[in-house]
């Protein structure tokens, strides 16, 4: 069980920092779907795949002093930023192999917006369906986000790129 905690610290260490709880949720989900052995269970919520287990685990890691959480007040909204601490790094090294996740995958996801990752992760959630049915499902679940056709195309292209990164 401690391995699951350690993997998250290792992930955040490799990312240097992760800005946004939502972004973290989507990054871990996408990584998981790309075959990275994260064990957090996800379910579909109104804002796409979401893991209560991940939320709780991150809270535990903050409580243990292995992660540092900082709140950034942006006026009309807030963003939480996560970084690994020195003791967190020692802990992560004791329980994980840092090669368990390709750095290129993290870098690639880091460069994308939270909105885009939300789209990609939701498409992954429905990836057993045809492309048209996937788009239809996303439009129902995220009717307020009004994703454009270009964004859908970009997301599908990106999913193809991720497959190459993992290979």
């Amino acid at each position: 069980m401690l391995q699951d905690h350690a993997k998250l610290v290792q992930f955040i260490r490799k990312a240097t920092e992760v800005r946004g709880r939502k972004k973290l949720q989507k990054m871990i989900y996408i990584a998981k779907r790309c075959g990275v052995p994260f064990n957090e269970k996800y379910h579909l919520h109104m804002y796409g795949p979401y893991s209560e287990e991940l939320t709780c685990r991150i809270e535990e890691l903050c409580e243990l002093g292995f992660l540092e959480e900082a709140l950034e007040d942006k006026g009309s909204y807030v963003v939480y930023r996560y970084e690994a601490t020195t003791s967190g790094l020692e802990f992560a090294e004791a329980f994980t192999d840092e090669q368990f996740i390709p750095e290129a995958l993290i870098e690639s996801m880091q460069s994308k917006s939270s909105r885009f990752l939300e789209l990609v992760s939701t498409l992954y959630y429905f990836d057993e369906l045809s492309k048209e049915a996937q788009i239809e499902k996303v439009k129902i679940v995220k009717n307020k986000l009004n994703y454009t056709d270009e964004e859908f195309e970009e997301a599908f292209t990106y999913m193809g790129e991720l497959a190459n990164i993992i290979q």
Partner: protein
Amino acid sequence: MIPYREQKLTEEKVFKDPIHHYIHVRDRVIWDVIGTKEFQRLRRIRQLGTTYLVFHGAEHSRFQHSLGVYEIVRRIVDDVFTGRTEWREEERLVTLCAALLHDLGHGPFSHAFENVFELDHEQYTQAILLGNTEVNEVLSRVAPDFPERVANVIEKTYRDKLVVSLISSQIDADRMDYLQRDSYYTGVSYGHFDMERILRVMRPTEEQAVIKYSGMHAVEDYIMSRYQMYWQVYFHPVSRSAEVILIKILHRARQLYQEGYIFETNPTLFIPFFKERVTVEDYVALDESVLLSSFQLWQREKDAILSDLCTRFINRRLFQYAEFDPATEYQKFGKLQKLFERAGLDPTYYLVTDSSSDLPYDFYRTGEENERIPIHLQMPDGTLQELSRKSEIVEAISGKRRTDHKIYYPEDVLRRGAETNPHYAAILQLIGEK
């Protein structure tokens, strides 16, 4: 002839229920769904898994809970929402069916079972609704696309989000039933809240059911109930110990099968799970009576670990637990693993860490970054406000983290052998050190 979807029973049927007094069924479709074998299977799945080993009353089933959720939703749509412009009456039947069937895919001891076999009860609920099943046959009689509509509500991809929110949101019929039911059957005094009041002040909006501001205190009570039930019942360390053993039994049985071990009695119903090729038929064939019978039989297996773990589970000889602080003790855990190996106790099965995130708390989340939809209060001017912005009590507990970590180990074996086995004594000493 009246279409099937509109048919009513000639006389209302009622189920006597300790939480809702009576559960009322008038719709023919609902009555027929209850009679299907897939729904009847839920009688053989306990709502609270291993909790009955701590709170002996907690033998209630997912069948009872499913009926309870149906009854709450029936009351909301028939007594509170009906006639309001935001509520579309044509959604009534799909909402009632989704409420009744939302837990259809739960497996035996579902949390442990899903954990070991990497299954998802929500996916199996979908598969049962859409597969070649009696439930599908009944729902298809309403309309060919009706099973899919019900499945979409449960999957949360239904177009009418108000319908989804009644079954799955931070204040839904599911939680309102299980908190009260679990409280009643465990016999604890937590878990009570004024559901009648919440139902009276619940209002439909386009996106979700919201609560009138005047009902805020009833919602506070509901949030507090969730908090207390988690720490007092759901995350009870002894119940967690039973679940730890259950998980290890399933892991051991699967490992033995995969290594070619010959069981005394062929574990026929488990084989699709061990092979990771599970059909809907395989899935619904398993229930808790099957698991418990297997554990009885596996007590006599030649494999010492499987036999011991099953004997522990059946006779409630659970692992002892000790507080564990990973921040300062994770290195100690590594030492313990080595000592267990030297002592001849396989740490994979006999030394287990368990954290509160292993049974994720259904904590109220304010969804500050829109990662979850919060509970909204409808203010007197019609605007919506997130609950914790108005309630100091909710603000206080939603900003407060509480976590827990323990290790579980067979203290009975270690104590019995400590005098003759120095490794056992060393393990006990290390666990006891702070």
